[in-house]
């Protein structure tokens, strides 16, 4: 029984992976040949196309080997130690068990047992219904019921035996008779067929198996396809065939079977021919016949489209084996002859490649990707050769394939529906995904990166194609992808890639542009697109590229003109990441150009955030108090950039800290009195504080230590030490033209050192000779003069230059003619604040009176004030008013004074007010009166 089962199974198995794994488990205990078989059937998952070829010459041996295989397989069928079983196996095993039971019971003529076992078998059949539906009624089942029927007939004719039976047994026999008659009616066709090809019981076990297999294959197939004409059956067919061929094809080395080969083969072929004749109309659907050319004949140019259609429809359905589908499509592709056919098949094949992405690794296998890429390439090749063909995403009506092909052959234009851009997108995305997942420090990563050239070539090709079919949207998308592969690369790489693309596709007659021009042209052409996202990204990439090429001004202007910084918060995350990258690149560019302030401005936001890694999508920072849902983490991981696109974070930090140092140290020196004000770079200050708090500072180890040490040296006026430390930072070597940058830094350090020196030590000098300064800081005298001049003009220091003696004369602002004391400084600050308080009060009143519609009154009031000066009469009148005001205010502030000391502050204030408001002494006096009144008022208030 199990032999038949095997045969049937291998015919119509759709879960080959499960099956082969289970069978290989079993086979472990089988013969050596089994081992090789299972191994190769496992590996055949990935190397199907290869096995196609070597299978070809051995077609004769196929059946035999199949036999050999299932023979040995049979041994293990009964093995009770099976561990892994597919659902299908389990069901069938159950049924097989029942069949065995029936047989055993037959032997002892126990009709009760037969009935029980038969019930069991039918139950199993019902359970396995789904599988049977798919694969047809198992051979062994039919066989059992036939045997049972025969046995019953025999039993019924033997009246004596019946009489001898006990009551229960005869009752069971009668019941069985009824049941079986009813039951077997359902399978009449199958039974008949089975009987038509009776199994020679004498034949060897193998042969029986083969025959059974051949017949069984025929029967269920017909059964289903006749009754339902279902598609699922049809796509099973190739699957089954495939399995068959695969399994058998691997058995080439099995030589001991060779002896029996010839006789069996002959018989087998005869059977196969008969079977084919029987199912003539269905022959096209079946794949078990393998022809001489080594090719699978079942897919013929005539029925190619039908098969293809079936494949496409089966795609994504439950139970469809993607691997098998892919192999079948490949086979169809081999058969396809005209470009139209090829294109159609490729359009189905490439998506099926993408389907096979395994979920465990999270990205598409490199080999599969490469296949997909080469197929896509071939697709473009066909499209380029046959300009009449074109693939459009939205095509309402598509001609019938055959009609379309005829049209194509007539040289007419044919439009196929399909989305090439989505294929390209997918390919590109899968590439990125794989880079995200491969460890960047391995060779794998590098070899994977090499594939980028072919991908880039595809993009270029696609762009050309879309340009030809005039699909502006797709052109823009492809260009965008192209830019995203270019913008962050150095010129040399771009040039190499472009050259490589031109050798790959000589048909591409695009002139080789300079990398910069190339990016510029691509980006500029995208500025007219009406997809916001593309436009924004193109702009950012362009800016990034410009910044990479030290075109700071242009990059800055472009970014500013776009006003992107205003609304970048509303864009999607990927664009924000790109924006951050661009900002960083602009900052680095500014640094290379020696623009310290611009560097700090550009990098400020990102570097001080504390989550540089996240902002640049270059890894996830572990934060202490962050609570992220797994979902968030997953999304974040998805966003990560491949390693080769990363911006060196250490370099970024170094640049930011260095520029912060150059700005912050003089700033701190200038505002020594109030260190907490006007902080330029908070992170820098924090680090510096931390560094200073340490009891013992060892020699600098990392970049940060170096910069901190340098900062302290700079603050102390030791520019040489500062320079030394900054130059000792290794990371500068990563910058292009590191020497120049160091030179620039030296220059800046000298300048800022001079400024810091001035801020820190000027209180201790009356005059400083400029030549001395120049020699101290190793600067030319005119440079010193320029720096000092700028400081004087900007009122950073109180000094002037005495030209004849070339000295800087320092002026003392302090009362004692010396340094500004802390008290004096505070007084100045205090006066500033008071005046700002008054100002804000005035504003408040104005706003309030406008609010109440009292603007009038205020104006009136000020007219009174003016009146004081212009004419006496009104002035006098006003004094009364203002003194009253004084009183009133005194009252008010007196009330307020309850809470604190200095109770007469209020009145005095009002007195002052009147004094200054009043034009003459008289007014003053009356004002004072008012003040006194106010004083009283305050007392009253108390």
């Amino acid at each position, binding site marked *: 029984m199990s032999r038949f089962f095997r045969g049937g199974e291998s015919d119509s198995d759709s879960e080959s992976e499960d099956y082969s794994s289970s069978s290989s488990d079993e086979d472990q205990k089988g013969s050596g040949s089994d081992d090789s078989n299972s191994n190769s059937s496992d590996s055949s998952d990935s190397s199907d196309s290869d096995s196609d070829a070597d299978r070809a010459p051995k077609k004769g041996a196929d059946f035999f080997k199949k036999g050999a295989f299932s023979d040995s397989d049979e041994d293990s069928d009964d093995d009770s130690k099976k561990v892994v079983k597919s659902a299908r196996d389990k069901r069938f095993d159950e049924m097989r068990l029942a069949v065995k039971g029936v047989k055993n019971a037959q032997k002892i003529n126990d009709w009760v047992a037969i009935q029980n076992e038969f019930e069991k078998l039918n139950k199993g059949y019902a359970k396995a219904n789904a599988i049977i539906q798919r694969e047809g009624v198992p051979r062994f089942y039919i066989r059992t019921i036939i045997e049972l029927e025969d046995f019953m007939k025999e039993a019924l004719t033997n009246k004596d035996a019946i009489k001898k039976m006990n009551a229960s047994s005869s009752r069971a026999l009668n019941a069985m008779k009824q049941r079986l008659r009813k039951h077997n009616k359902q399978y009449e066709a199958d039974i008949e067929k089975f009987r038509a090809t009776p199994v020679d019981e004498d034949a060897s076990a193998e042969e029986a198996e083969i025959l059974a297999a051949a017949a069984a294959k025929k029967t269920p197939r017909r059964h289903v396809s006749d009754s339902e004409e279902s598609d699922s059956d049809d796509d099973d067919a190739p699957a089954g065939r495939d399995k068959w061929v695969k399994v058998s094809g691997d058995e080439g080395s099995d030589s001991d079977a060779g002896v029996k080969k010839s006789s069996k083969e002959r018989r087998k072929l005869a059977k196969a021919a008969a079977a084919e004749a029987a199912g003539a109309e269905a022959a096209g659907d079946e794949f078990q016949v393998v022809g001489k050319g080594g090719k699978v004949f079942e897919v013929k140019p005539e029925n190619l489209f039908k098969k293809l259609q079936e494949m496409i429809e089966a795609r994504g359905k439950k139970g469809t084996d993607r691997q098998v589908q892919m192999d079948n499509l490949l086979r169809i592709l081999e058969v396809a002859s005209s470009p139209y056919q090829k294109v159609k098949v490729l359009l189905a094949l490439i998506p099926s490649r993408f389907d096979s992405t395994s979920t465990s690794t999270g990205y598409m296998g490199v080999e599969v990707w490469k296949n997909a890429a080469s197929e896509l390439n071939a697709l473009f090749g066909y499209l380029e050769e046959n300009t009449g063909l074109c693939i459009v995403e939205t095509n309402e009506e598509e001609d019938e394939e055959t009609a379309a092909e005829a049209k194509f052959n007539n040289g007419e234009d044919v439009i196929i529906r399909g989305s090439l851009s989505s294929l390209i997108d997918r390919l590109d995305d899968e590439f990125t995904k794989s880079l995200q997942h491969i460890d960047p420090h391995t060779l794998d990563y590098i070899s994977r990166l090499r594939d980028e050239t072919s991908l880039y070539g595809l993009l270029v090709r696609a762009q050309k194609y879309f340009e030809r079919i005039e699909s502006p949207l797709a052109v823009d998308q492809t260009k965008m992808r192209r830019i995203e592969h270019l913008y962050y690369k150095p010129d040399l790489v771009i040039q190499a890639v472009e050259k490589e693309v031109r050798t790959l596709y000589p048909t591409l007659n695009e002139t080789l542009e300079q990398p910069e021009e190339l990016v510029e042209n691509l980006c500029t052409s995208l500025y007219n697109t009406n997809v916001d996202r593309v436009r924004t990204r193109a702009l950012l990439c362009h800016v990034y590229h410009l910044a990479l090429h030290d075109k700071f*001004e*242009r990059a800055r202007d472009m970014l500013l*003109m776009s006003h992107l910084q205003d609304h970048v918060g509303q864009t999607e995350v990927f664009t924000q990441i790109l924006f951050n990258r661009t900002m960083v690149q602009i900052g680095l560019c500014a640094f290379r150009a020696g623009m310290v302030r611009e560097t700090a401005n550009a990098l400020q936001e990102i570097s001080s955030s504390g989550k540089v890694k996240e902002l640049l999508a270059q890894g996830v920072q572990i934060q202490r108090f962050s609570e992220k849902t797994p979902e968030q983490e997953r999304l974040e991981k998805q966003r990560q950039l491949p390693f080769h696109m990363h911006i060196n974070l250490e370099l970024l930090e170094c640049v930011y800290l260095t520029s912060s140092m150059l700005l912050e140290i003089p700033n701190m020196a200038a505002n020594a009195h109030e260190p907490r004000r006007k902080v330029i770079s908070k992170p820098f200050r924090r680090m510096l504080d931390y560094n200073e708090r340490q009891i013992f500072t060892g020699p600098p180890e990392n970049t940060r230590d170096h910069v901190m040490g340098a900062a302290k040296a700079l603050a102390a006026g030791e520019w040489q030490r500062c320079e030394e430390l900054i130059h000792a930072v290794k990371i500068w070597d990563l910058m292009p033209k590191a020497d120049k940058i160091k030179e620039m830094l030296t220059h800046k350090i000298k300048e800022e050192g001079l400024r810091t020196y001035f801020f820190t030590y000027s209180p201790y000098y009356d005059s400083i000779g400029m030549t001395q300064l120049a020699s101290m800081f190793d600067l030319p005298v*005119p440079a010193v*003069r*320029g720096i*000092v001049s*700028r400081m*004087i*003009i900007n009122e950073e220091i*109180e000094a*002037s*230059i*005495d*030209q*004849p*003696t070339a000295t800087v004369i320092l*002026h003392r*602002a*302090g*009362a004692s003619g010396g340094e500004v004391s802390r008290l*004096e*400084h505070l007084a*100045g600050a205090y*006066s*500033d604040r*008071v*005046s700002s308080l*008054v100002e804000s*009060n*005035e504003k408040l*009143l104005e706003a309030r009176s406008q609010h*109440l519609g*009292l603007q*009038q*009154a*205020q*104006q*009136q*009031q*000020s*007219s009174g*004030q*003016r009146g004081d*000066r212009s004419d006496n009469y009104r002035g006098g009148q006003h004094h009364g*008013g*203002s003194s009253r*005001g004084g009183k*009133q*205010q005194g009252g008010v502030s007196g009330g307020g004074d309850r809470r604190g000391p200095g109770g007469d502050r209020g009145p005095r*204030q*009002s007195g*002052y*007010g*009147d*004094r*200054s*408001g009043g*034009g003459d*002494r008289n007014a003053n006096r009356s004002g004072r009166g008012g003040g006194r009144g106010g004083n009283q008022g305050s007392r009253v208030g108390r």
Partner: protein
Amino acid sequence: MAQYDLTAKIGAYLDRHMVAPLLEFLLGQEIYPHEDVLTAKYDLLSKTKMIDYTDLIYREIHGIEDENVHEPGFEERRAVVLKKFEELTEKSSEIMDMIQDPVVIQQLKQDKLANIQFLTENYNFKPEMLNSLYDFALCNYATGNYEPAAVMLYHFRILSTDYDQNVSSLWGKLAAEILTQNWDVAYDDLNRLKEMIEQRNFTSHLQALQQRSWLIHWSLFVFFNHPKGRDGIVDLFFQPQYLNTIQTACPWILRYLATAAVVNKKRRNVLKDLIRVIQQESHAYRDPITEFIEALYVNFDFDGAQQKLKECDDVIANDFFLVSLQEDFKENGRLFIFETYCRIHQCIDIKDVSAKLNLNAEDGEKWIVNLIRNARMDAKIDSKTNTVIMGTQQNSIYQQVIERTKALSFRSSLLASNIEKREQELQNRRKGNDGNNKTGGGKKQGGGGGRKPQKEGGDESARAHSSETPSAFARTVGDE
């Protein structure tokens, strides 16, 4: 000098006819070969309808003396233009008669629609006539008859209600006025055009940018010729939208802006903006004039500034717009250098500074004396050491604090009395409201009437207030 010549850049933003004077100027400057300029001029004019003028240049290029030899196609083109001209003259004769009739003009009012109605009723006016007037004006302009074109466009603008045509006729009129050198009218037209541009809602930024950059270029003619232009250019160009336009579209205008800022003594406050813009755009545009500003105010390199000032002289002499400002610029540039120098130094060697000012020692001394005499600075000359000693204007902290706080008390008292007045006002109102409730509206009216004249007085004084406060205050302090 050719690298500093902006004719080509500016020309792109001008009308064909307006470039002619620029080329005319270049002919006299010897920067470019004579023939080249002539050819350029010929190319320029051959696309206008000024056939005779073009022919003249053609003959000059080819050295043709003969009166009867003309450029190829001369006769036909001339005939075509003349025919067109006559056609249009005829077509528009009706309306021309109408609008030139003093009786009609007297009866016209401000309201365009009323005017049209009036003309339609009394003078058989038809809307198509306006179009022919417009066409005729255009034809006149194209043939070089700027004055009649301006007049016609003036009348057209009085009557036409079509907005777009109105704008373009204003552009046309401005061009015509510029070409007839009617600066007063051009200045008014320029302002009108500016308002129109500012009020208009452009569909795209690009359009707005274009209109503004045209205006900027056209206005150069007016600003550098009209007496009020020196202030006008600074006021207009330093408006944020125009400054942005200059930065985005035409950085070379910075030359004119810088020159105008240097020459203008009243508008010193714009210097900071100017320096900023020049620094920002230094990568996009630089010439000796912007470099002069940069050297002086960014690098404080006086020798460099002096050097640049000398170069500026040449550039300005060869610039169509700036040539009239040559002396002014030199003088003011010198002043700039000296002023900045004085702010930094406390003791200056006259010989040295004279060299920096591009003067000999004696002239330098004279110049400085003149400056001091004109009370521009607090300085004295020490003839013994031959130096200028600057008066120090250092304030001690004590003084600074007083300086900063002395106005506060006055302001506070003002504030206090303001509050008090408000209280009173509120009380009065409340009372008034109560009264109203009892006696009706009579009292309220009275109250309102009583308030009103006061308010007017208040208005006036509020305006005067700001200017008078400091002096009044100073007096009070003095009293103390």
